[in-house]
């Protein structure tokens, strides 16, 4: 019996992710161990103090008196079943908390990355084809400036312009709470609320992909097979579409997976600034309120997300590059 090659490839990639996930689990555990005080200290602190016997009993109950490696095994077992413990700040299981917050973050990420990738590739391809022209110089310079811009500063400038000066867009939140929209009006309202966060998050990466695509296009344009295409009598537009684009996109796709982690990190600031109830904002709140269980849950979950996105980009790459043998 034979598997379709792409499936076998996918399976192999998934297996490769296993050691990575295990290492992340151990790392998360070690971070918890590094933190001053443990879970029981947090709990006791929350209750406003307790006697020593009670604390010792609690430690025993949670297995904190066991050797470190037993605790590690137990901890990894819990992470594997998505049991991230209890949030003493939000008074609910961390996993429930994360699940509630995940959709907003995923929507923000998906919209931002799509915009950054599509816009960056399109602009970069154009700039690369017209390399060293006046328009290319303008685009490239703007790209440099945006890439050097801290995302919170960009967000601030946008708020200053679009909310404070022009009054076109709301300063924050996921929806207009006072308006009680329903149905498609609600969706529209949420979309309007997402415009600035998405723009602030994606413009920087759009600039990044643009610069990458531009140099990739320039590099591919100098390869021999492009000259072959010219020797066949192919016009420049056709050469761009059929010969340069796909080859030039390969390095950009590779970086898409790696960049996802950075964008996810960047969304902490954006979600916090625009008061979007996603997991990145939760990460900030849990630092402020010293909710370590939640923070570590986010660390682990975001690492899983990054692994998943990398898995998907690997599959896309395998489809794009005919040189990769799927078998």
């Amino acid at each position, binding site marked *: 019996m034979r598997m379709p090659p792409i499936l076998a490839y996918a399976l192999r990639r998934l297996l490769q992710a296993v050691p990575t996930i295990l290492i992340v689990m151990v790392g998360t555990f070690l971070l918890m161990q590094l933190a001053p005080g443990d879970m029981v200290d947090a709990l006791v602190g929350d209750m406003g103090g307790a006697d020593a016997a009670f604390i010792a009993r609690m430690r025993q109950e949670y297995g904190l008196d066991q050797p470190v490696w037993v605790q590690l095994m137990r901890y990894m077992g819990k992470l594997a079943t998505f049991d991230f413990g209890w949030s003493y700040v939000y008074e609910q299981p961390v996993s429930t908390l994360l699940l509630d917050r995940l959709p907003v973050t995923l929507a923000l990420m998906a919209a931002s990355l799509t915009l950054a990738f599509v816009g960056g590739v399109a602009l970069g391809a154009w700039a690369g084809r017209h390399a060293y022209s006046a328009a290319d110089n303008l685009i490239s310079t703007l790209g440099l400036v945006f890439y050097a811009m801290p995302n919170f500063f960009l967000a601030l400038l946008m*708020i200053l312009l679009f909310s404070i000066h022009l009054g076109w867009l709301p300063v924050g939140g996921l929806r207009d709470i006072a308006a009680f929209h329903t149905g498609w009006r609600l969706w529209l309202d949420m979309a309007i609320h997402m415009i600035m966060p998405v723009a602030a998050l994606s413009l920087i990466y759009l600039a990044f992909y643009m610069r990458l695509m531009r140099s990739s296009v320039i590099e591919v344009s100098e390869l021999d097979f492009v000259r072959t295409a010219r020797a066949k009598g192919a016009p420049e537009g056709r050469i761009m579409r059929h010969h340069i684009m796909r080859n030039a996109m390969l390095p950009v796709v590779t970086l898409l997976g790696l960049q996802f982690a950075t964008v996810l990190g960047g969304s902490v600031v954006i979600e916090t600034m625009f008061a979007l109830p996603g997991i990145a904002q939760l990460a900030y709140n849990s630092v402020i309120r010293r909710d*370590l269980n939640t923070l570590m849950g986010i660390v682990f979950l975001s690492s899983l997300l990054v692994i998943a996105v990398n898995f998907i980009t690997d599959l896309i790459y395998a489809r794009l590059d005919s040189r990769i043998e799927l078998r």
Partner: protein
Amino acid sequence: MSLDPDLATALVEPSELPPEEPGRLAVFWRRFRRNRAAVFGLVLFVLVVAAALLADVITPGDPLRRVAQPLTDPFTNPVAPLGTDQLGRDILAGLMHGARVSLMIGVVATLISVGIGIVIGAVAGYWGGWVDDVLMRFTDAFQTVPSFILLLALVAIMGASLESIIFGIGIVSWTSPARMVRAEFMSLRHREFVEAARSLGQRPVATIFREILPNALPPVIVFASVIMATSILLESALAFLALGDPNHASWGNMIGQGRSVLRSDWYVAVLPGIAILLTVLSFSLMGEGLNEALNPRQKK
């Protein structure tokens, strides 16, 4: 036979030497100078360094103290030429002392991350095999955790002192240099000049330090400018979220403070924002110039 010495030497290949070339530094500077953007970056960088050095001369004293009426507009009061924030602190002093903090964070964090990266990348790339497998799995795992979120966790655990922030930034950004050094080592270790050194009987450690590392460094140096920029951005984002070290002036923190008065006094937030933008821009521009000057095979 046709290896006749007269015939062969009559052809080309002179035994005399080509004309002397200018020194390496001169060649490097000539190439760097060709890129006007890079020179602009260098000028910006010199300005930032000057600001950091002269901070105590031009704006002596604690930059976090009150010097004038809160929210003084820029260019209205010679005591605070660029105005004051809502606590009456001099914005110019904040900018200059902030340059010091930003540069220090950039330099030290970059040294830490590039140092870790070189060690791990060199070991993985030179020895290959299972050593490489193990180290790269480890690097992979590190890379999957978003660096800013990991930085938040580290700061939450270690506290928000300047030292722990610098250390944290170094820890979260070593993976890219490690990958880069590994790739360089993997390609260089099979190059003929490295094999030549091996066949002369050179020991592995000497081969790493004398043959491979000097040739692997130029791209790493270029990349260090990127890490320097991201380090500054990471710190400013922390400070913006009020998670930085409260005892030091920081551009990110100034922006965070200015946010609450954005509606009325936008300059409080915008001025330090421009300072970050220009500093990061100077690194990007210089990095590009360095890249062109160090890798001349890339055509203009």
